[in-house]
């Protein structure tokens, strides 16, 4: 089933991809132009995805219950971290992000927070101070 869904998604994507390619025109440049290569890719890709729809492999065992919740929560933490990195500054955002991830990986609150804070400070010192990679230090509202 998973194969069929993915195959269908890719099929829709390749049709959109090949169809959009037709609108790329240039009156100058090489004889082939910008549209031909994408069109050449779209046809076999569509056929292969169709194959996936028609002849799928057996479904893998997906995570259920707690592990699945943890996976979704981790992706949520990562997205939040990416958005907050510049607003909160590297140290605060990383301490929060790493603590949350430690917790999701099964460590206790205390351990997660200690390792998160240590990681945030340590990475900042190594990369910003020692290696000269500029990182946002302060939360944005403070600067």
């Amino acid at each position, binding site marked *: 089933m998973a194969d069929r869904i993915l195959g269908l998604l890719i099929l829709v994507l390749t049709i959109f991809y090949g169809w959009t390619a037709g609108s790329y025109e240039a009156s100058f440049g*090489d004889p082939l132009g910008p549209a031909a290569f994408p069109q050449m*890719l779209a046809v076999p890709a569509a056929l*292969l995805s169709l194959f996936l729809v028609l002849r799928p492999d057996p479904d893998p065992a997906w995570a259920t219950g707690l592990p699945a919740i943890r996976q979704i929560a981790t992706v949520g933490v990562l997205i939040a971290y990416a958005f907050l990195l510049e607003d909160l500054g590297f140290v605060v955002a990383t301490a929060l992000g790493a603590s949350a991830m430690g917790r999701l990986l099964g460590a206790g609150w205390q351990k997660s927070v200690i390792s998160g804070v240590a990681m945030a400070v340590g990475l900042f010192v190594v990369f910003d101070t020692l*290696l000269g990679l500029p990182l946002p230090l302060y939360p944005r509202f403070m600067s």
Partner: protein
Amino acid sequence: MDILSSLAQGFAVAVTPTNLAFAVFGCFLGTIIGALPGIGPVNGVAILIPLAFALRLDPTTVLILMSCIYYGCTYGGRISSIMLNIPGDASSIMATLDGHPMAKAGKASEALAISAVASFIGSTVATIGLTLFAPMLASVAIYFGPSDYFALYVLAFAMIGGVGGASPWKMLLAGFLGLMLATVGLDPGTGLARYTLGSFNLYDGFDPIVAIVGLFAISEVLVYLETAHHATGTLVPMGRAVPKFREMLPGMGAAFRGSFIGFLSGILPGAGASQGAFMAYVAERRYSNKDDTFGKGDPRGLAAPEAGDNAAAGGALIPMLTLGIPGSGTTAVMLALLISLNIQPGPLLFERQPDMVWGLIASLYIANVVLLVMNIPLVGIFTRMLSMPQWILMPFIIMVSFLGVYSISHSTFDLMVMIGFGVVGYIFRKLDISLIPLVLGLLLGADMENNLRRALSISNGDFWILVQSPIAATIYAITAAVLGTAFILAFRTARRRRASALAELED
């Protein structure tokens, strides 16, 4: 003799104090990365590339650092295979078969020493092969025109589809998806924006390094979260610190045999290090499993795949450096590194930047010696690293990935792209779709399109030019043969599987 003088010149580049220091540092870091379960060479090298840029090092030094990390990883992978029965990376799966039983029988230090020596033999054979064959291939490849290169790219994808996995359809589909992703951004020929959906962030296309870090590092955490509860190994006690030499001797012949098999499989695109280790083990078992000792801690069963693994890793550098076509995941990452250093790999690399190429080759010889010396006495330190809890390690990998990607462009958008690729990577891995062709497509797509368009500019739009040169025609013939056998084999296994499923139903 030409090669020897070039190599001497290379050693002059490699032994400058900075380069030597970074080589040793790279070996150390690489062994740790290889040893820790969860970060393989692909992840490790990909995460560190942006950071290496941040150090503003000389391109040659960056290349030396990364290659030493690459070689170090192939040494380190075996440590957790032997001690924990959990492979440190995909290519050291075979090392668990005889390595872990040896360690359980109280011969942990012998197992580690044998595999270190076998790794050294494998890597050295591959490095010598690289020294001899790479310039030869480069001098042939100079005669390649655009249509020949296009044919070569087609062959590379066919090989990956044919050799690499259980389902050639999925491999090929992944390759096409990668190529499609590569067309996103400004078209180099005309400056037209393609598939950017109106977003300026996509004008430069997807940065392969951002994609690779997401595909491998982020997806690894998602995979780990799922398997965490039933994959905890226990560390085998080390036992004697000094290995007994007599216990190690039988493994030496196996190491040499494994090296040659591994080297050959490393050169073929798509086969890569895991395949090299696998083939070396199978061949060695057939050759010397007379008393049925394999799988129960036979030193030969450990030495052969370890040597094969390392030799394949070295061999895979040959097509990457001379043709610009990587054969494995890690060499794909190395290619991404070269491209971001503004170095175009391929036959001209040997002519235009001999210092860099030969400096790299010389530093691989040095790395081998350093790694051998480092791995026998210091193996205790690396072993202790294995007991680092995952709740520290995983967040650390993620944070360093974010740091690395953030340092490329300082943009939140790239971080989101990385997370997106991570989720895609996880789904693909679950559905048995290899990520390697996806990465290769993304990396090679632009070059493949450019060569195609250049060839057709020469012929003024006549497609016959693609098959007119004898080189291209030969390559297409090989491609057809490879694809043909792959699909026939896949059909046969599918039919056999269906037949056996049917038989089970009838029972």
